[in-house]
């Protein structure tokens, strides 16, 4: 049976190859830093479960040290010239599109297949496993028809990853920081502060504090999942549901979505906001957030009104 462990091993091998190719890229003055960084990530993917918690922690410290010392960088150039791309696009055109669509289509089919037919792959991780299978199939189909030099996909993939740089592990780092925050009880303190800031007896004030608190705390934590239990305990449960008799399903469901509005506005949600800016090679790392604020703010207001009307007035 295919499990998530196999996907981790595939990712580890990919990172290890990126590290190795990077090491031999003499055009990059920071090739040793890059190789060490992607190499450590490969170790984490393949051996993470055997390193122990403290061992994994030391590995993270090493990753942070390499990035913090500015030892990660990309080699100049390496892109295929645009004229060549245009020429090849005219020749291969829709085939490229077809291969690009293999990944989502396999992810889709696999998600259903692995849930319906037990024993093939871990059904709980069906989508991630299918995504990895889609990558392998797309790569095989693409290589068979395009017949590129053998290392081209890895070299181009490495170039893309180098341009993302240390931001590639930012989402994982922030998720880990959330775990430390939870251990230290940060949520309870913030929830307590917001709880004391609400005017007594005002239903709308309490709804407002709950909605804004979800968004603000999500912005701090980068994740609405971390904010939800805290805000529910501080405001949602005692005031909205117990004191004012609000519908718990509405308070929870729309409160979570108010948190998602916060996710659109914070660099802490790196995988949604900072990583795409790096991946699209934007000059402003906050460009995506800037494009989202105009949607997030009015939508947050709408969510607060929805809680007020749907949980109490219907």
């Amino acid at each position, binding site marked *: 049976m295919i499990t998530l462990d196999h996907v981790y091993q595939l990712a580890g091998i990919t990172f290890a190859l990126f590290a190795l190719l990077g090491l031999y890229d003499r055009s990059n003055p920071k090739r040793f830093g890059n190789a060490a960084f992607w190499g450590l990530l490969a170790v984490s993917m393949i051996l993470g479960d055997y390193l122990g918690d403290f061992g994994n922690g030391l590995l993270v410290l090493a990753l942070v040290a390499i990035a913090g010392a500015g030892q990660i960088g990309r080699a100049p150039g390496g892109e295929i010239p645009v004229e060549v791309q245009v020429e090849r696009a005219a020749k291969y055109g829709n085939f490229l599109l077809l291969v690009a669509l293999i990944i989502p289509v396999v992810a*889709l089919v696999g998600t259903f297949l692995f849930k319906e037919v037990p024993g093939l792959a871990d059904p709980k991780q069906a989508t991630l496993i299918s995504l990895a299978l889609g990558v392998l199939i797309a790569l095989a189909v693409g290589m068979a028809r395009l017949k590129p030099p053998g290392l081209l996909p890895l070299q181009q993939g490495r170039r893309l990853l180098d341009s993302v740089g240390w931001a*590639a592990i930012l989402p994982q780092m922030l998720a880990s920081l959330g775990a430390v925050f939870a251990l230290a009880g940060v949520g309870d*303190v913030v929830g307590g502060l917001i709880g004391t800031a609400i005017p007594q007896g005002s239903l709308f004030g309490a709804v407002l504090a709950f909605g804004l608190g979800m968004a603000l705390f999500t912005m701090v934590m980068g994740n609405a999942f971390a904010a939800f239990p805290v805000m529910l305990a501080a405001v949602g449960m005692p005031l909205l549901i117990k004191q004012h008799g609000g519908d718990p399903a509405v308070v929870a469901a729309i409160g979570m979505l108010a948190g998602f509005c916060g996710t659109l506005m914070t660099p802490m949600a790196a995988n949604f906001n900072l990583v795409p800016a790096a991946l699209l090679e934007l000059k402003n790392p906050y460009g995506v957030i800037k494009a989202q604020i105009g*949607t997030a703010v009015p*939508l947050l207001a709408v969510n607060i009104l929805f809680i007020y009307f749907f949980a109490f007035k219907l």
Partner: protein
Amino acid sequence: MLVLIGILIIIAGFLLRFNPLLVIMASALATGLAAGLDVAAIVAAFGKAFNDTRYVSIIWIVLPVIGLLEAYGLQQHARSLIARMKGATLGRLLTGYLLLRQAMSAAGLTSVAGHAQTVRPLVAPMAEAAAEAQNRRLTDDQREEVKAYAAATDNVGLFFGEDIFLAIGSILLMKGVLEGYGYQIEPLNFSLWAIPTAIAAFLIHGLRLRRFDKRMRAGPGGDGQ
């Protein structure tokens, strides 16, 4: 109160543009120490969480495929497809993607699209080509904005579609937390209450995409429609 120092470090660090990995580590250490943990325990807690969340970083295995396809002109092809379609305006293209992303996420297919899988190789170049067709003198800043809107549209579509799906993590979390307070609620209830916000998100972001489309047409090179 002292444990809030980690939040201050994060905000200050991001504002002063220190390397975010260093800022995160400093914040974790300060928060842990303020809570009375020793350094080894903090490092271990961080390491355990890092190992448990590795699935977040496996998305990068798509890069060799994207690199191969881009080397053979995928982005150029995506552009020429849009250039040949007469009705494919910037606004319509991104609104169509928003609807598609919301619908697929609502069906639980969240990882099918995304920044690495679809936005960089397909949606962003298509949006750029549509914007170019509408405005012959698109500046570099405008080009950046078009790409940023493509990524933003993916996020809005994902966030305000996924909660309609019954088995998504956030719904299971809500169910679990409310059960802890003695409320038994069927997942379907949470799903249904996510629909009004999904519609509002589509209307608000769709309206903004219309205005963005108009803004990209304005100016000397634009077709000003």
